[in-house]
């Protein structure tokens, strides 16, 4: 049943008003402040871009995001592929397992890693057993990556899985009947078809990774801060909302550019984030 437009707007109003007032306005406010404090102008951005630490932190953040994506591909692609191969019961189990991190508290998970990655902890012992004695991962970038991958893997796996569900496995059989061995068939038939899904998932993971705060704060070291942590320090230590606003604007613009590029080229991303026009019309 179609609701008249007038009523629809009324129903939408509470949610939009709240989102506007307590989300859009505040974020807009600090960005505006980055252009107007202490005086109107671009001095905040001049200062930020002239400071080499800004570039170092941005570079480090992008590199960490890229590494996270690579790790997710390595760990998550086989997992997603496995999900397409198994029977319904096993598949449900695999889905539930991959969803577990979604509802387990972030603090609980990060705290668990602190305990596991600390000096002389279980992971250190494991590494020593593999020939790397005396290595503590807590307070290092690898430690942060471990935490980030655990959090972002579900997003990756589910997006890839949704994308590769539609690939007909009989194509592999067909390729093999034409003379290719199992591996060639997979590499030259299945893999290329799965690329859009992988790109969609990678973009999602990368964008989410850029904004990580708690994980690097607790598992990493301040000398290897990511951009979210620097934004936090600006406000928490220096009461510099304008600077924080400037860095936030830079972060948001980078994210928007990425989303725009990928969105223009790959519809699957839009669908995954629920923003597709086609979906709304359905």
């Amino acid at each position, binding site marked *: *049943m179609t*609701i008249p437009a007038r*009523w*629809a*707007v009324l*129903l*939408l109003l*509470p*949610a*939009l008003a*709240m*989102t*506007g*007032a*307590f*989300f*859009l306005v*505040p*974020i807009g*406010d*600090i960005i505006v402040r980055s252009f107007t404090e202490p005086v109107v102008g671009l001095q905040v951005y001049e200062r930020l871009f002239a400071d080499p630490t800004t570039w170092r932190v941005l570079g480090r953040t992008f590199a960490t995001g890229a590494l996270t994506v690579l790790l997710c591909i390595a*760990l*998550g692609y086989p997992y997603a592929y*496995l999900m397409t*191969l*198994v029977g319904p019961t096993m598949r449900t189990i*695999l889905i539930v*397992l*991959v969803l577990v991190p979604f509802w387990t*508290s*972030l*603090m*609980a998970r990060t*705290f*668990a890693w*602190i*305990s*596991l990655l600390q000096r002389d902890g*279980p992971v250190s012992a494991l590494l020593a057993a593999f020939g790397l004695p005396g290595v503590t991962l807590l307070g290092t970038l690898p430690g942060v990556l471990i935490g980030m991958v*655990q959090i972002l*893997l579900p997003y990756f796996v589910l997006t890839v899985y949704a994308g590769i569900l539609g690939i007909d496995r009989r194509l592999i059989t067909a390729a093999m009947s034409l003379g290719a061995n199992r591996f060639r068939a997979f590499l030259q038939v299945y893999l290329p078809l799965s690329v859009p899904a992988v790109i969609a998932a990678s973009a999602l993971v990368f964008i*989410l990774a*850029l*904004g990580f*705060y708690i994980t690097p704060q*607790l598992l990493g070291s301040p000398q290897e801060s990511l951009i*979210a942590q620097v*934004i936090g320090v*600006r*406000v*928490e230590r220096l009461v510099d*909302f304008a600077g924080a*606003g400037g860095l*936030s604007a830079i972060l948001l613009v980078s994210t928007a550019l990425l*989303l725009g590029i990928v969105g223009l080229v790959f519809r699957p991303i839009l669908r995954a*984030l*629920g*923003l597709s*026009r086609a979906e*709304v019309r359905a």
Partner: protein
Amino acid sequence: MNTVTRARPPLIVWGAVVAVMLTAPTLVVIPLSFTSQRSFRFPIEGWSLQWYERFFTESRWVGALMTSLGVALTAAILATIVGTLAVIALGRSRIALGPVARGTLMLPIVVPGIVVAVGVFGAYLRWGISGSFLGLVLAHTVLSIPFVMIPVTTALRGIPETVERAAAVLGANPLRRFTQVQLPLLAPGLVTGFVFAFVTSLDEVVIAFFLQSPRLRTLPVQMYSSVTVETDPTIAVASSLVLVISTIAILVPRLVANSRTKRLATLTKEAAS
């Protein structure tokens, strides 16, 4: 499943490794909460309930738990109400700005938490509501709306419009159609959305951290402060409790979902006959 594309042992092993990596580490917090030492050492040396005792007797922990539950419940209720209204508006009407509205409401998922936290903190300081219960609830509500909209949208799509049309034909006005047809059918989706919103607020730490005051400290914030300051296994207790609460909360929609399928089947049968 044919022999060509069945799952081979290496793939299964890899999948198992990943599954373990996803789930096992978190379970560490449960035995840790029973350690007899004032340390985060794992495996633990000795069992004790002292940290549980401490959690439930120290006002900063219990107070934090109560604050978290209060904020989460309120935010979840608000988010479910406004989110559901929005979903119905978007799903059952044709307005020009529909996609824009939907996109806007979904934004909180993509925007980094620190940016939201810093912005909201700055704005709240100016409005004089930083450190207030209401302020935190409103911020969490906005954050949870997308998590309500996703399951409710799916649920709404699952309601054939024929059912609503049948009700209209039988004389029900829009309001009655909503309360006596749509709402009951949407209920499982609503419950799922409510639970997602609840868990999102319960777990949220960055915004709550910046908006905190001596009287407004949520459990994740207390955990965050505690873990950065001293070695206090009480945080393992807090983690375990939150794990249990979240798991129970997530399982609830599963049970409600079963009744939904039954109800829809009955309704469709009645409408068809």
